């Protein structure tokens, strides 16, 4: 009974901590998710010439998969759904053409067994709360790994509400394809010397801001899932405790 009681207390404390962390993560999510990628998207959305001239998609693409998970556990199903989603995705693709760049311990550990040949790089202990320069550094690594691939797929949990989040696959262009596409941009005025030097920088903005949104969403989803998991654990502990108490 003593152990059940103390477990109940611990989970209750963890729930409070997660709730307050979630508030912080939500604030960061709402502040940061409009950054960057929307604007870059408009270039592609509004330029009809560019859309017609985009390089054709490959039938059997070489993919770099970037699943984003956490290092700590006890966060409900968030990490395991990411791992399962990646497994299902790899089964729909040509396995020999996939590479996995895993961010977060839980994901790396979960994928080392089914995909020992695909897991190329893994990053762990990314300090929370996430900050933008760290994400920029990761974007550079991903960009280097995906030099010869046809697309980058970022797998993360999108925060929908405090009790639900959804797994999203975000598809991004690797650098070569982005630069090739931008050659055809007509609507947006870019003076020639500027075009050649600023398009790689624009690619960095595109990749990093998309990753940033993914990270923010993932953090908020993780905290909300942990809060719910600890809430359930406390409730269960309380029930067991009452069951064990003599009337």
């Amino acid at each position, binding site marked *: 009974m003593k152990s059940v009681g103390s477990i109940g207390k611990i989970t209750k404390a963890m729930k409070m901590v997660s709730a307050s962390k979630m508030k912080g993560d939500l604030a*960061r999510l*709402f*502040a*940061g*998710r*409009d*950054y*960057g*990628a*929307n*604007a*870059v*998207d*408009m*270039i*592609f*959305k*509004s330029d009809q010439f560019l*859309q*017609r001239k*985009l*390089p*054709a*998609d490959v*039938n059997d693409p070489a993919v770099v998969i970037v699943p984003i998970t956490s290092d700590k556990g006890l966060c409900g199903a968030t990490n395991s759904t990411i791992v*399962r*989603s990646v497994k*299902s*995705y790899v*089964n*729909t693709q040509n396995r020999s053409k996939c590479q996995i760049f895993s961010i977060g311990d839980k994901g790396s550990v979960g994928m080392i067994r089914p995909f020992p040949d695909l897991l190329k790089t893994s990053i762990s202990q990314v300090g929370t709360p996430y900050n*933008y320069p760290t994400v920029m550094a990761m974007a550079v690594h991903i960009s280097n790994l995906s030099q010869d691939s046809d*697309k980058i*797929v970022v797998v993360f949990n*999108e925060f929908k509400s405090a009790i639900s989040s*959804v*797994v*999203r*696959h*975000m*598809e*991004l*262009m690797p650098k070569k394809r982005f630069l090739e*596409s931008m050659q055809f941009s007509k609507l*947006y*005025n*870019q*003076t020639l010397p*500027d075009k050649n*030097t*600023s398009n790689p*920088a*624009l690619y960095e*903005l*595109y990749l990093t*801001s*998309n990753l*940033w*949104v*993914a990270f923010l969403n993932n953090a908020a989803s993780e905290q909300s899932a942990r809060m719910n998991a600890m809430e359930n654990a406390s409730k269960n502990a309380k029930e067991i405790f009452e069951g064990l108490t003599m009337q």
Partner: protein
Amino acid sequence: TRAIRYYTHSRGVTHPPLLQDRLLGQRGTVPPLYKPGAMFRTGLSRVAGSGMGGLLRRFGGSAWALEGEKSGIDSFIEKFRQSAPSVMEPPKFPTEFAKNKMKELDPAAPTPSKITFNFYLPHQVVHQAAEVDMVLLPATTGDFGVMPGHVPVVAQLRPGVVSVHKELDKEVEKFFVSSGFAFVHADSSADICAVEALPLDELDPSAVSAGLADYTAKLAAAQSKGDDYETAAAQIGVDVFSAMNSAVNTKQ
């Protein structure tokens, strides 16, 4: 995520593109697998922010495009179901929730009287959909001002001062930005994405001159040592601090 898909009919005729934007919690995942005879072109995909509704925009509305998409989705979901665990839901696609957000640009419409201005930092939204008269931007190729009806531009910014004229020359906000990108769109909206920006009032002149002296010394040291990386880093420091210096001094 927002994905731009282009459909090419099997006979090589290009159909108008099917634009899909991402919707919060609604964004499609992997694009459908290729159906024989239809070539899908996947462009940008992006996660949509919460404020953004899903965008399904069809230029010209081609029925073929829709069919190609639907059967592509079906074949993908079939394959996904075979390999995914039974309790896992198949991904949702943007076609399932179209919410037209972007305004159709009517060429006959008069130019708007104000610019819709967005100023984003990774950690803060400085301005969102603010109606302003003019914005002055420090681009790498030179300073330029944006007024309603400006031609669409993508400009890389250098460290410098962004002036937001809420009312022309009357209500002016100045920010020092650490470089970034500025986008002016065809519907008279402007976006600035910078990694760091602060109101000009918050720059401390003494700290700025101290920093400038510091980095100038570092630059000299690195150049004498011949270390390329350190030279570049110090040069960046000198550039930013000189920009801050001139910004602070011009204000005074």
